[in-house]
């Protein structure tokens, strides 16, 4: 892998822990929000913003930038934390999420939050929005790529499949969807709520190039993103096999933490656990 050594991977892991700590603090302060799906999405977001994407926090509207669209808008805390850590806005803003008169709304809003490309929160829109950006890029002969993160439960929405068909019809090889496959949605396991499998076959049948990886392994995530840039004439789906609530033991695979924030005790336990990992990584670096 191009110049990716163990030290860099550790650095990504350290950033991911910091982002997870932000998420816990944000949700605790806001007394509402979505921990599970925010935590599962963190590692892919860190790989995109701290390694893979061509972007500049000083020029958030640079027409040549790569775009990231968080279609699963309820993972806003993860996006906000990554944007703040990248330098799009002050980390202090994070504390104000979901508070009145603050910039950081419960779900992402474009135009008023630097770095947020699309307003999301109603599921199923982001991939379509990404198609518009990808088609505009092709029309203007620009080299940027468009990354869209979908929740697995989100793909219950019919619009996602309209978009899947259109992206493939237009051979959008500048469009990369990342599926946060954590197997849980509000009412339970994705397969019992509304079966998604065979996920890989479904997307392949729509004409997508599908790559399936461990969504918490930076080697695999970055490897898949690199591979995706070499695929031509079709859109690419990266299935990120993830764990809902990843990084906080009692939240992992626990559907109760989809949309319920940690109480004071849970917040303390989570921060303690994440700080241990943080210290360990810092010692190794």
């Amino acid at each position: 892998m191009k110049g990716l050594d163990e030290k860099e991977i550790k650095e990504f892991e350290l950033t991911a822990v910091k982002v997870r700590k932000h998420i816990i603090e944000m949700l605790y302060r806001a007394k509402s929000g979505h921990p599970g799906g925010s935590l599962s999405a963190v590692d892919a977001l860190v790989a995109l913003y701290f390694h893979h994407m061509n972007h500049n926090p000083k020029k958030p509207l640079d027409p040549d930038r790569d775009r990231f669209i968080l279609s699963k808008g309820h993972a806003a805390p993860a996006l906000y934390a990554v944007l703040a850590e990248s330098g799009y806005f002050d980390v202090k803003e994070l504390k104000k999420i979901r508070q009145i008169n603050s910039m950081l709304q419960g779900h992402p809003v474009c135009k008023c939050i630097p770095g947020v490309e699309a307003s999301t929160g109603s599921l199923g829109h982001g991939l379509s929005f990404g198609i518009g950006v990808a088609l505009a890029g092709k029309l203007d002969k620009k080299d940027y790529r468009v990354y869209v993160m979908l929740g697995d439960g989100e793909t219950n929405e019919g619009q996602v499949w309209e978009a899947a068909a259109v992206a493939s019809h237009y051979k959008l090889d500048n469009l990369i969807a990342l599926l946060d496959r954590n197997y849980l949605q509000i009412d339970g396991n994705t397969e019992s709520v509304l079966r998604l499998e065979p996920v890989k076959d479904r997307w392949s049948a729509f004409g997508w190039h599908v790559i399936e990886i461990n969504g918490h392994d930076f080697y695999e995530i970055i490897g898949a993103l690199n591979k995706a840039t070499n695929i031509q004439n079709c859109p690419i789906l990266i299935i990120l096999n993830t764990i809902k609530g990843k990084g906080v033991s009692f939240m992992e695979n626990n559907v109760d933490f989809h949309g319920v924030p940690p109480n004071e005790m849970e917040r303390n336990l989570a921060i303690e656990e994440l700080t241990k990992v943080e210290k360990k990584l810092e010692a190794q670096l």
Partner: protein
Amino acid sequence: MSGKLMVNPRNAYGEALIDLGKKNKNLVVLDADLSKSTKTIMFAKRYPERFFEMGIAEANMISVAAGFASCDKIPFVSTFAVFATGRVYDQIRMDVAYSNANVKIFATHGGISVGKDGASHQMIEDIALMRVMPNMTVIAPSDATQTSKIVHLMAEQKGPMYARIGRANAPVIYSKKDVEHLKLGKGVVVEDGSDITFICTGTMVEPALEAHKILSREGIKARVIDMHTIKPLDEKLVLKCAKDTNGIITAEEHSIIGGLGAAVAETLADNGIQTKFLRMGIRDMFCESGEPADLMEKYELNTKHMVKKAKTLLKN
């Protein structure tokens, strides 16, 4: 209406798109398998690389348009009014209105004069749906000349906009010169009068002009307002009409709930104005298949009924 020059506003839309496409390379057009009916096919033939066929998938189309707008493109999105609003309400709400995206939704086949396709295709709620949407401008052009001018204005001015025209050929009301200074949000006094005012939008302007003629022969001076922009409403003009004349009749090929009539009523009430007032439109019901003229007669949306209602209102 014999002897009048009839032009289809849909053709005016198609021609305006070609003209704009020549002037502005950022203009893109999207359609959902109805380009032959909406006339976006005219643009598609001239500028195929900037026309995007989205198939019968309207929800996706609206969000795609928002993505284009985020890259400084000016997307015009077309389909029938029923699919351009109700079917995609959430996509317009999130990706267009809430995001204040520069997306232009241009719908055809609005209202009941769609005719034989029946109530499934007769959109009478679109103005209400779009009017309640924050940030959205709502427009209903009244003839081909005005349609052309309005399409140009939509492309020039930033922000989310919804415009709807009908399916049928329409009598030409304006010359090019007449619409030269037209402004969105500013109503047009097409005929002046001091007894009663017709405030109309879209396809109802022309029947009101006919009503004006008939009434004038009977000594009733009716003012006719072309309220092409329903939101933002030209409230100043509404209030002026309430002051200058003895009553207001609103007319629209739309439900009486939430559309032009409602907007005018709200303006009058908010300003404490008491005047004789009547809303002409579809009275909270679905209509049916039929010849357009027969439908307009049955649902009381033609010149004959305008004359009748004006006289009754003034008498009461």
